[in-house]
């Protein structure tokens, strides 16, 4: 009886130990899986290469920010370091499996993830015929347009626009008050009448002039000159006709040769 109890106790104890073992191993496995996935995301377990890029202004890019290629996250920023007073070195760690898509003339630019999101680096692949970028190689960069630059440009544009509108305002006032030539044309009715009269006079004068010219042509002193001119014109016309005939003949010949 007593022995029986002992053995059942021992069995119970082994059972408990097994249960404990299962419980602990499941928990540890769970922990390792989570660590693996987080590490995977940070590329601890994939082969990576590093590439460098220099920017004038990284606009808040930080270590650990994502690197994207065609919109897919392929790596992270390893280091952001000030090199000189105007350049910042950015070291990127990217998956080796995408190295073949990134050419030597690929361009990296800094963008942002959504409207208020973190800064990311976007890589645009270069010419498909150029060489693949090397591990530790340097990638071309485009300095991002910062909001400050846009604001500065906008300020300049509005200043210019203000100047132009001021000028236009002065001009329109002048026109309205009838100052200057354009103002007179638009606003002065008397001046408009004068212009009208001038045009009528000019028309009449032109009619008189053509009569005069007819008279001159019939004058005996100048008749010879006009006849000579008529003859020359007729000659030129004949020559032009001859040339045209020649050209058509040549074209026909060419056609014949081609047909043959």
């Amino acid at each position: 009886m007593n022995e029986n109890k002992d053995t059942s106790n021992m069995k119970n104890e082994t059972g408990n130990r097994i249960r404990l073992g299962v419980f602990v191993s499941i928990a540890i496995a769970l922990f390792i899986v989570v660590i693996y996935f987080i590490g995977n995301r940070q590329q601890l377990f994939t082969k990576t290469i590093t590439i460098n890029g220099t920017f004038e202004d990284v606009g808040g890019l930080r270590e650990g920010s994502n690197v994207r290629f065609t919109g897919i996250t392929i790596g992270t920023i390893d280091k952001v370091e000030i090199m000189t007073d105007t350049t910042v070195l950015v070291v990127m760690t990217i998956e080796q499996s995408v190295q073949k898509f990134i050419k030597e003339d690929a361009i990296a630019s800094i963008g942002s993830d959504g409207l208020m999101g973190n800064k990311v680096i976007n890589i645009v692949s270069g010419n498909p015929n150029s060489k693949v970028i090397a591990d530790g190689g340097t990638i071309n960069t485009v300095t991002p347009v910062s909001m400050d630059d846009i604001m500065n440009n906008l300020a300049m544009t509005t200043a210019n626009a203000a100047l132009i509108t001021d000028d236009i305002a002065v001009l329109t006032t002048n026109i309205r008050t009838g100052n200057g030539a354009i103002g007179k044309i638009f606003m002065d009715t008397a001046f408009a009448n004068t212009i009208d009269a001038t045009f009528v006079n000019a028309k009449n004068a032109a009619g008189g002039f053509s009569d005069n010219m007819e008279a001159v042509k019939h004058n005996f002193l100048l008749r010879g000159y006009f006849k000579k001119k008529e003859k020359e014109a007729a000659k030129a016309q004949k020559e032009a006709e001859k040339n045209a005939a020649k050209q058509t003949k040549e074209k026909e010949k060419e056609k014949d040769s081609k047909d043959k």
Partner: protein
Amino acid sequence: MSKILYLPASMEDFFLEVDALSRFTGRFFKTFLKPPFEFSEIIKQCFMIGYKSLGLVTVTGFIMGLVLTIQSRPTLARFGAEAWLPGMVAVSLIREIGPVITALICAGKVGSGIGAELASMKVTEQIDAMEVSGTNPFKYLVVTRVLAAMFMIPILVIFADGIGLCGSFIGVNIMDQVGLRLYFSKAIESLDFVDVFPAFIKTFFFGFAIGIISCYKGYTTTKGTEGVGLAANSAVVLCSLCIFIIDMIAVQLASFFMN
């Protein structure tokens, strides 16, 4: 007791308690590295503390994840950011809520258990009997329980976190349709080593605090049968308080070192 420092009686008691607890902790560190090691007793205590609390922790963890998701949803929905729900719940569960709630539950269950057990052994003079028979009661009773609590609480926390994420998955799917893979990839995506490791390390301290405080309260009890209930009660109260204090220190240290 003679009045030496002219402190109010309650304050004097408090400092005497701190002193006794410190000595007790020192004694633990002196003892636990010396052989012989009571491995089979440690494993038995692990079973009692860890495996026996599993059901409780599972249910709490599941409800934690579910409720946290349902409660956070309206706030995020106001910004149209329901898609952040998995990430947000995962971070808050693993960084803070999982460890603290699990530790508090265990302080209630394990702390009161150890406190009452050791106190009743003390008042029935079993501890004295052990000392007479040549076994080191401190080593056999205290060290094993403290080590078991220290190893088991982190493992229970991992379970609670995992179950909590499953609960959160169900919570998300009450209102939305999110696939299991998408949910977990979003949850993992929002996590970082900075979220996981400090939270994991502090659970060891939670476990240690639960073990050492409840053992101290049980081991040093007086006043007979009445002392057993008192020991169990004060063990739970002090454990819970210490968990919050350790949590605060851990968060401060983590944010100091990780940034």
